[in-house]
């Protein structure tokens, strides 16, 4: 009898999960004949549960695990901005999404650029928004894939290499996004939500209880070991915290992948109920933060902060539990990355391809979208495999860059005199400022998040 290696169970868990995702994603749409709205925004027919898991899955990525836990481990309380800006974004989105959804319904919008086209009646602006969306989101997509590869690598106890994880993960995503569009993503995100719930509340929440007897014990220990972790502290002090809350809370809706899910809602009541419920989904980050803080309180030194949550699991459980976390990381990354791929494909086909060929029919655009899914998938894979790390600076720029569209989007709602020229020049000026501050100025003026300077 051959003795099973320690890695056997975790690898089986991860592979089973990947196969389950593929089967569910493909079955969700394989027999459907999609028109463009059916493919990109699920025919504007999503009910509350699918809409909720779709949005939550898009928002909470692999970095909700790795980054949040890593920040909690490295800095402590500054990570609270992540809880706060989510709540603020949903409170804002509760009102903002109405206009987006209505424009979508009336003018058959399927992308973010479509919304700007309707509001400002400017093709130039729509193309600009589409280009910004694509350029700034490719590094974001790449980072998701690297996070996926890394988490699967650790989860499989090193048996699945980072690159193999990236390739498998991306192939799976490309297949189900290709066949099923947004409908496939909403179905696979239902699976993700269930697994994230299990990982957060069963696996991670128990960690401070195992080591410190409870949450109070954790923070009492932490106040001895790293007292700074209990408060905001420079360089992430109160000015940084408040400006980041505002920037991220408002900038949230400038990500193009938020738009297809808004259009996907079947009616206004469903859309609004969804925003009412989203703050509760953020609560799952609390166990992630506690796990990161536990590693800090134990006084462990990590070579890279992103390991914190995985390390917390490793020291608290038998090794096979890492397989569940690996599968959870795959699910978190895949749900975000697949939505980005589809969104970029939508921007390329609906907003850029139609400039080249205005007469393109609806079914032709579906084909172009599907080809674009493959193109963006392969592009992101090549970048993730051959240029890891180099684009991280671009990613930091991404959020600020996207946020430059905010004045155009929001003032356009409430201020009737706002016109396309003001919107275009505002976006360009904002981008120039962000680039300048990031690459030449080199630090954040007054510790206020640099993107906020550029908006103003």
């Amino acid at each position, binding site marked *: 009898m051959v003795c099973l290696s320690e890695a056997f169970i975790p690898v089986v868990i991860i592979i089973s999960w990947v196969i389950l995702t593929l089967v569910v994603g493909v079955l969700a749409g394989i027999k459907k004949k999609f028109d463009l709205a059916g493919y990109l925004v699920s025919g504007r027919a999503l009910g509350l549960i699918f809409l909720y898991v779709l949005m939550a899955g898009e928002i909470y990525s692999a970095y909700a695990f790795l980054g949040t836990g890593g920040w909690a481990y490295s800095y402590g*309380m500054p990570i*609270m901005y992540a*809880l*706060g800006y*989510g*709540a*603020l974004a*949903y*409170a*804002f989105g*509760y*009102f903002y999404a109405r206009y987006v959804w209505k424009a979508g319904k009336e003018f058959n919008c399927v992308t973010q650029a479509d919304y700007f086209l309707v509001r400002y009646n400017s093709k130039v602006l729509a193309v600009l928004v589409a280009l910004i969306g694509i350029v700034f989101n490719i590094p974001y997509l790449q980072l998701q894939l690297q996070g996926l590869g890394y988490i699967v690598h650790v989860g499989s106890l090193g048996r699945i290499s980072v690159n193999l994880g990236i390739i498998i993960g991306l192939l799976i995503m490309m297949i189900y996004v290709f066949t099923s569009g947004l409908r496939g993503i909403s179905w696979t995100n239902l699976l993700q939500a269930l697994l994230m719930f299990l990982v957060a509340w069963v696996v991670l929440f128990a960690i401070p209880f195992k080591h410190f007897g*409870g*949450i*109070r*014990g*954790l*923070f*009492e220990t932490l*106040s001895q070991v790293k*007292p700074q972790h*209990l*408060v*905001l502290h420079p360089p992430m002090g*109160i000015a940084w*915290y*408040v400006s980041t*809350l*505002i920037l991220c*809370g408002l900038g949230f809706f400038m990500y193009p992948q938020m738009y297809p899910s808004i259009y996907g809602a079947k009616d*206004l*009541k469903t859309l*609004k*109920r969804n*925003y*009412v*419920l989203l*703050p*509760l989904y*953020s*609560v799952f980050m*609390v166990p992630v*933060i506690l796990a990161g803080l536990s590693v800090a309180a134990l006084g462990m030194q990590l070579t890279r902060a992103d390991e914190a949550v995985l390390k917390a699991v490793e020291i608290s459980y038998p090794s096979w539990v890492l397989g569940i976390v690996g599968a959870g990381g795959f699910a978190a990354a895949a749900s975000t990355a697949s939505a980005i791929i589809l969104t970029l494909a939508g921007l390329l086909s609906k907003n850029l391809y139609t400039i080249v060929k205005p007469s393109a029919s609806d079914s032709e655009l579906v084909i172009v979208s599907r080809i674009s899914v493959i193109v963006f998938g392969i592009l992101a894979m090549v970048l993730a495999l051959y240029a890891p790390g180099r684009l991280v600076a671009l990613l930091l720029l991404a959020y600020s860059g996207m946020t430059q569209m905010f004045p155009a989007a929001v003032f356009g709602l409430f201020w009737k005199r706002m016109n396309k020229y003001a919107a275009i020049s505002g976006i360009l000026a904002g981008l120039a400022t962000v680039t300048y501050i990031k690459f030449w100025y080199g630090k954040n003026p007054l510790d206020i998040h640099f993107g906020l300077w550029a908006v103003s």
Partner: protein
Amino acid sequence: MDKKRAFIYAVILGIVPWIAYVVISPAFNKTEPLILGMPPLMFWDVIWLFLTFLCLYGAYRMELRGGLLE
């Protein structure tokens, strides 16, 4: 309730979480006392996830009664 009034009440409820996080939460930036085992800032930011849910639910009820969601 007329539409305009319902909308204004809903917007006010939507602004409340912004005030709680952006204006008030920095005042909780201290190490003591631990509330439910958590540092004050963490307690405030976590509890407001639930309170944000309640505010938005209130806004939803307002808009529903004002007939704004048809």
